[in-house]
């Protein structure tokens, strides 16, 4: 962490989210997660489905259902603890300083309103501007996300747009008020590969223009390599590794990360079958007391029955593994 503390936009410490089912069964979906995001930088949160990455982002936004979700820890944004903030304060921040885009561009826009209306709505909510000014700004936003003929598209209903175009509209809406932080939850997962690349390129460009910090949630390491500066790898509700993107890909320091990288198909190697991580994610309503990855880990030792801490293994990087650093093992 070489940046000055003033540059930190979002600091998450010891975040935990527990869901309580109607039968009283508790599931700890997020357990002691911590990371920080800096101005103008992109943090990737990586992990397979169910690892708690989306829940983490919804907790930051204050969008988890009030009934049934218990959130603890600290989420400091612009010097303010969001978990202690009132619902009213959160509503004022959401859409303005804090913005989010989602995985499903096909269903995330309201089918009954034009895309222009939906972008204007966020401006009228957070900025005291006239409808005419909001309209102008909305068209400008559509232009900035490279939607052709934005004046005409303004009056289109979402069903007239393709998935990629809709995700551009979502981005335009999210960035309309110049947020300090943009959370993108799997923004390209539902899109074609070529469209994915365009959207990522667009996000990168807009980050440079606006200086917003981005939290990019994805299961796709290719996307991480493309746009992220730093990466948090999550497994079963916990952070298992934190590193800069270069370090992570060069020397993964957690067996799970090694497995994820190994599961990436590559052109320069011929393999008879794709490698996969054996086994399945543990049941989160009764997680193992020791290392949560132990059951699937090829490097397991006796000590793994005890939960390893998220400890520094090299300057600027953390790993939750008793056997880290892993250089010797990976060879």
């Amino acid at each position: 962490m070489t940046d000055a503390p003033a540059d930190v936009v979002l600091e998450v410490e010891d975040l935990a989210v527990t869901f309580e089912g109607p039968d009283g069964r508790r599931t700890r979906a997020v357990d002691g997660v911590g990371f920080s995001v800096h101005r103008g930088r992109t943090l990737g949160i990586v992990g397979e489905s169910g690892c708690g990455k989306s829940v983490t982002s919804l907790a930051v936004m204050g969008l988890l259902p009030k009934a049934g979700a218990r959130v603890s820890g600290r989420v400091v944004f612009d010097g303010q603890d969001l978990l202690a903030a009132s619902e009213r304060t959160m509503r004022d921040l959401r859409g303005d300083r804090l913005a989010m885009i989602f995985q499903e561009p096909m269903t995330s826009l309201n089918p009954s309103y034009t895309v222009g209306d939906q972008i204007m709505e966020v401006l009228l909510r957070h900025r005291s501007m006239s409808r005419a000014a909001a309209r102008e700004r909305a068209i400008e936003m559509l232009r900035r996300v490279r939607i052709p003929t934005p004046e005409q598209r303004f009056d289109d209903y979402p069903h007239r747009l393709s998935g990629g175009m809709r995700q551009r509209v979502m981005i335009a809406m999210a960035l309309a008020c110049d947020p300090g932080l943009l959370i993108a939850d799997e923004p390209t997962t539902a899109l074609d590969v070529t469209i994915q690349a365009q959207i990522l390129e667009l996000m990168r460009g807009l980050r440079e223009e606006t200086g917003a910090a981005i939290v990019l949630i994805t299961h796709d390491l290719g996307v991480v390599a493309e746009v992220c500066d730093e990466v948090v790898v999550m497994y079963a509700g916990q952070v298992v590794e934190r590193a800069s993107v270069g370090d992570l890909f060069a020397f993964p320091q957690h067996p799970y990360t090694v497995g994820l990288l190994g599961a990436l198909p590559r052109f320069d190697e011929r393999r008879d079958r794709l490698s996969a991580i054996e086994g399945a994610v543990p049941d989160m309503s009764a997680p193992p007391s020791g290392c949560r990855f132990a059951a699937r880990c090829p490097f397991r030792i006796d000590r793994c029955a005890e939960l390893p801490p998220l400890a520094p293994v090299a300057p600027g990087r953390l790993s939750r593994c008793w056997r880290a650093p892993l250089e010797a093992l990976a060879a």
Partner: protein
Amino acid sequence: MLTVISKRLTQLVPTLFFVSVLIFGLQHLLPGDPALVMAGEERDPVVIEQIRRQYRLDQPIPVQYLHWVRGVLSGDLGESMRLKEPVLDLVRQKLPVTLQLAVMSMIVALVLGVTLGILSAVYRGRTLDHLVNVVGLAGISTPNFWLGIMMILFFAVELGWLPASGYVSPFEDWRQSLATTIMPAFVLGNSIAGVIMRHTRSAMIQALDSDYVRTARAKGLSEGSVVLKHAMRNALTPVITLGALEFGTLLSGAVLTEQIFSIPGFGKLIVDAVFNRDYAVVQGVVLVTATTYIALNLLADIGYILVNPRLRA
């Protein structure tokens, strides 16, 4: 939009044809002879014969039908055998009464049904939701005649606030008109409100769980705006169709309630006509009701298109 309307108007022709054949045919299956009813106690064969000839009852049914259709097409619904009045005039007198009652009932039903439906969806699984569901179920299951009688007993007999029965046209005295129709409108609206409430609830729950509602929340919109603007607009589409269908039912189905409150509307007209084998009146009323019903469906489809831009293409 215009294509949809013209398509539906074309469908109107065969539909109405079948409806007319059905009403005409079915009613001749009814036991009893209108001429006998008309002739009264004495049953003088000469009089009966004369009545039969006058109303073409002596001719084969297809011929009678053709004659009737020819009249309908030229705007003549025939003449009531009992009241000696053109059916069209009777319809003209009674339709506004039934229409007023139907509109008022619909307002009661929509206000109650949509409001309670939204509340129970927003407070899903909580006490308010259970309470609303119990109230809604009670509304659906309470028989109209019982509720009507109870309301008369309480508000008219006990408290003396409202007249127990009768009808005053709003063009004569709108206050009195409101006073005479508010109870029957509530009775009719109440049972429909329960159905509308249940549909609104499930549609709203679906809408509130949708991704676009999550987006609306992520924009920092107030809960009011999220629920009433983003979720409701999408949830109300099925409710519009339901409302139109229920409105159509109100036009023909208020028989019992109209009887209880002595409202001189369609319901009373048709019941009297059936009992007296007054064929022309039954046919005329059913035809008008059916046409209105179909027209309402068309209006519902148009409303559907207006709130749902995906159908506008």
